[in-house]
């Protein structure tokens, strides 16, 4: 149908003057993509009303029941579940395992000679430094996937330097992608015994805008019993824009901390 005629029909419909037959034509035009639903003003307005109808807030009991169920499932999973990994996953792991056994064996032989032992230690240190450098440079990448890889690299570093934890804290505070921030927080959980990391995490609370990160931080603070986080958590609690469910979680964490 000609564009002009379609526009005329839309106009007529929006003025509430379309006949039953014309409405059937409009339906056909919607089906053939010649009319977008948003062009039909009264319908679009109703659709918007449905979309913006406020969601009902789930009760705490619902959360409670869910996490209880998850807890039961976790206990079941740790007791006997075994699934054979696929070959493309298994092969690199097997290769790494064999390599590590070989490296361990050779190191054992060399360590008997003091000079070689020193060289091995030096080499290990260099490898660790190299990994740290790679991780920090990957964190600068534009792609979120690359940055996630960088964060996951920290799991390969046994005793990361302050440079690494500082880079992770910076990611947690400033990365534009919420998944990367969550991954950084996940990685930092392994180093909460360090004072600088704990301080960094506390400072990060007020900087977070994503409810998911706020939830995760509030839970972490309760788990590690970080009492200095109370004032920061209260700040988030007092913010108008903080979602209700986050506020509830923060209140729970504060109950544990105070």
């Amino acid at each position, binding site marked *: 149908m000609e564009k002009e005629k379609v526009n005329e029909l839309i106009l007529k419909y929006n003025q509430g003057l379309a006949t039953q037959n014309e409405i059937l034509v409009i339906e056909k035009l919607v089906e053939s993509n010649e009319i977008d639903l948003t062009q039909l003003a009264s319908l679009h307005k*109703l659709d918007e009303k*449905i979309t913006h109808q406020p969601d009902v807030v789930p009760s705490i009991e619902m959360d409670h029941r*869910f996490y209880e169920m*998850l807890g039961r*499932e976790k206990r079941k999973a740790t007791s006997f579940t075994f699934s054979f990994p696929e070959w493309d996953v298994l092969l*690199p792991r097997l290769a*790494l395992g064999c*390599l590590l056994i070989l490296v361990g064996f050779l190191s054992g032989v060399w360590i008997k000679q003091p000079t070689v032992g020193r060289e091995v230690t030096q080499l290990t240190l260099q490898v660790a430094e190299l990994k740290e450098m790679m991780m920090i440079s990957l964190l600068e990448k534009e792609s979120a996937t690359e940055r996630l890889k960088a964060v996951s*690299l920290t799991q390969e570093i046994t005793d990361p330097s302050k440079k690494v934890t500082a880079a992770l804290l910076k990611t947690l505070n400033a990365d534009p992608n919420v998944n990367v921030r969550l991954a950084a927080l996940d990685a930092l959980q392994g180093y909460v015994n360090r004072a600088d990391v704990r301080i960094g995490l506390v400072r990060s609370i007020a900087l977070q805008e994503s409810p998911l990160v706020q939830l995760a931080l509030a839970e972490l603070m309760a788990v590690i019993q970080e009492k200095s986080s109370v004032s920061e958590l209260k700040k988030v609690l007092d913010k108008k824009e903080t979602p209700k469910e986050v506020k509830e979680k923060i209140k729970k964490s504060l109950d544990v901390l105070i």
Partner: protein
Amino acid sequence: MKLQTVTLHETLNLETLSDNYLMNKVRDGDPDKLGLLYERYKRPLLGFFIGMLRDKELSEDLVQNTFARILKYRHLYRGDGDFRTWLFHIARNVKNDHFKKKRVDQVPVDIWTERIGHSEIRSEEIQQEEELGMLSIAMERLSEEKREVLLLSKYQEKKYQEIGLLLGCSESAVKVKVFRALQELKAVYQQLEKTY
């Protein structure tokens, strides 16, 4: 250097912390990750069930059943489609099973009818509340099929192609279904406006 190559290869398997990534983790034996998915989707799911059943307590039970079913059938998750679509596919099955067990007929529209009928002083807030109440009544008067397509349109964020996968029809057919449902909703809504 060899060691590093292997390590890097391993990290390449890590994609993102997207819904699919998390659900894959759940499938592969890390049920903890379902917590994050639950936090992301508990509200849309509850909204969908309440929209269909008008009963908060029952809807919360069905949200729980949906996640229990996800855990039960996690080994069937392939991870090649949209997680939200898979989730709503399960939610619809849970809802249909409930309807099979117990036919939900009349729903408590009286609460809204009463509130609308007796309001004398109409502040903007009350008026807005009334409009939402009227919309709820109008939605209730639609057939189950029409109500569902409108709710899916809301919670699937107008992705008609994905809704088509759920309903087993084409994208164009979904648009027509939404058009018809909105047409009827408009008629019921206008009727209600005249009444109150």
